[in-house]
């Protein structure tokens, strides 16, 4: 056997993409279902609303995804998001800075708070779950102390106007922003040394360290990026609402994990799927909107989301096990798993 460097010759390419193909198929199925049962689903009004919530969900998903890449978690993204939101409100309304400057500073604040998380995690060696659980509380509390929970509602009118803007009748420019961020993340993880280092640090920190990857730095950068992305998601909501409100971000936990996990990003680290995260967010948004339009949703929606997440991770799990079994024969821990099941 000679090694082949032609990536197209890889037998596993299709298998690798099968998760995404499956996800896309499910989404198409739901769109078909909702469209035929509730024609209003594809009205330009609903499509616009959908594209706008999708944009926010995607970026929230990205924010968690970049940290999952390192095998860590960031429970503070909601808190970081709302800090950036309130900072932008303060800068625009009270200080009167121009919109781009205020937005840039708010993004910087988000990045800084993310950096703080990363720095403490790396320096203390404490699990990111605990650190970000605590910092979520700290950041939110700090924001409330400083802002007195006052909504900033006299923002420049351009803000709300941008949020309402429609391209092509039903696409929010926010969605394009989200997709542009996605493209940048694809470049980061596929075409840069930094992205590879983050993935290597997530897959096997010790091996990466001994291969010369500055693992601590990679983790800190991933958290910084996560903070900046959380801030972006918050700012997108500012555009959408035309106001900077302290209640933003308080229910981001579930969607932030839904999108990347549905999209096949591993909790163990070392692998991300940007396209998967986008599709994951699309599935969630579709379901939410569709179930509401069909009048099933509302109160039962939460149950459906939970069950979908369970089903997705379980299908993924068994698909993975099946693929592994085919290529490797019986694997040890699989045997262990079976024995555990019988015990």
């Amino acid at each position, binding site marked *: 056997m000679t090694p082949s460097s032609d990536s197209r010759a890889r037998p596993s390419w299709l298998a690798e993409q099968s998760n995404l193909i499956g996800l896309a198929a499910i989404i198409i199925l739901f769109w078909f279902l909702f469209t035929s049962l509730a024609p209003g689903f594809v009205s330009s009004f609903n499509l616009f609303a959908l594209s706008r919530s999708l944009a926010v969900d995607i970026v929230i998903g990205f924010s968690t995804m970049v940290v999952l890449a390192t095998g860590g978690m960031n429970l503070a993204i909601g808190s970081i998001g709302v800090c950036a939101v309130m900072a932008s409100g303060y800068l625009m309304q009270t200080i009167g800075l121009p919109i781009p400057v205020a937005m840039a500073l708010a993004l910087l604040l988000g990045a800084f708070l993310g950096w703080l998380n990363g720095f403490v995690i790396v320096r203390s060696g404490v699990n990111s779950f605990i650190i970000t659980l605590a910092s979520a509380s700290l*950041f939110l*509390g700090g924001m409330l102390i400083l802002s007195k929970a006052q909504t900033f509602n006299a923002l420049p009118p351009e803000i709300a106007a941008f949020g309402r803007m429609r391209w092509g009748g039903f696409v929010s420019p926010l969605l394009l922003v989200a997709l542009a961020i996605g493209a940048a993340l694809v470049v980061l993880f596929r075409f840069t040394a930094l992205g590879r280092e983050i993935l290597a640090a997530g897959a096997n920190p010790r091996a990466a360290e001994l291969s010369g990857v500055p693992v601590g730095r990679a983790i800190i950068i991933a958290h910084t990026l996560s903070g900046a992305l959380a801030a972006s998601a918050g700012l997108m909501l500012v555009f959408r609402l035309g106001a900077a409100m302290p209640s933003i971000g308080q229910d981001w936990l579930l969607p932030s994990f839904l999108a990347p996990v549905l999209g096949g990003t591993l909790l163990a680290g070392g692998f991300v799927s940007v396209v998967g995260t986008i599709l994951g967010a699309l599935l969630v948004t579709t379901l939410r909107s569709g179930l509401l339009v069909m009048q099933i949703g509302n109160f039962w929606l939460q149950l459906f989301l939970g069950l979908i997440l369970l089903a997705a991770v379980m299908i993924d*799990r068994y698909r993975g096990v099946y693929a592994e079994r085919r290529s490797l024969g019986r694997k040890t821990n699989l045997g262990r798993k079976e024995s555990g099941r019988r015990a």
Partner: protein
Amino acid sequence: MSQNRNLTFGQRFLANEWSALAVAIVIGLVTLATLSSAFLTEFNLYVMLRSFCVVLIVAFAQMLTLAVGQMNLSVGALGGLVAIAVGGMMEKWGFPVPVAILCGLAIGAGGGLINGLLTVRTGINGFIITLATASAFTGINLGITESIPFYNLPASFVAFGTGRISALPYLLLPPVLIAIALAFFLARTVPGRQLLAVGGNPQAAELSGIPRDGVIVMAHTLSGLLAGAAAILAVAQLGSAQPSIGVDWLLMSFAAPIIGGAALAGGHISVAATALAVVLIVIIQNGMVLAKVDPYWVQFLLGALILAAVGLNRLRAVRAGGA
């Protein structure tokens, strides 16, 4: 590397783990008692003890999953489900109080069992499983109640939630019994020791013939059972079965065991330290009302407290490692 030196250091270490919390509590008590004459009044003590009850059981619910290196994000969601189930059974179906309570506990345990089985059978991270089931439990709760609470609960049940003997609320009885039972379970019974063994070294436990998967399922089931118990207590305390019970349990459920020195990796938990941590949190909350501190600070201080506790533990571990 003399064994004796390690031992004495270890003893000191253990003593420290207790003392830091105890000292913080004593300082808090003394400060508040000096600052405000109202602090040690009978009613204020009653109020503090009363708010202690539910939080303590919630903390225990999380502590048990932490013991085996798992986590349970669904404590609050499961609590909410049990709360409305118990309320509904009493109001709509007219179940007698004890029957409703037993059914509620069974639902809690059942939810925990589902968490455990899913985690063990699929091998998927417990974080994701319980995140998903939390959403599902909340969904069932909202779907059944449409967010409308059950108000008409039996008078005897509600009376239990508000009754007291001087400063001691009746409500304190179940958490105290649970704490004693749990301490006994973890220290002196075979399943309790197995639970700690699996958390301490899963591979070793398995090689020693302990059914690891079974123990993890047990930990989740007990966690669900305790979440259910906490919910029933919350219903009694509030006098109505609110669908919103449990929505803000998550942070607290992790905060108390972690402040009490539990490690996420498992195997190291303490009933007493967790209880002390809850006492500390309750004192701080009460003190903030007493000192008329800006309500915004509550959130901030809780986060700071977790970080401080983790930092302290880390420092101790580093020092112990250096010795």
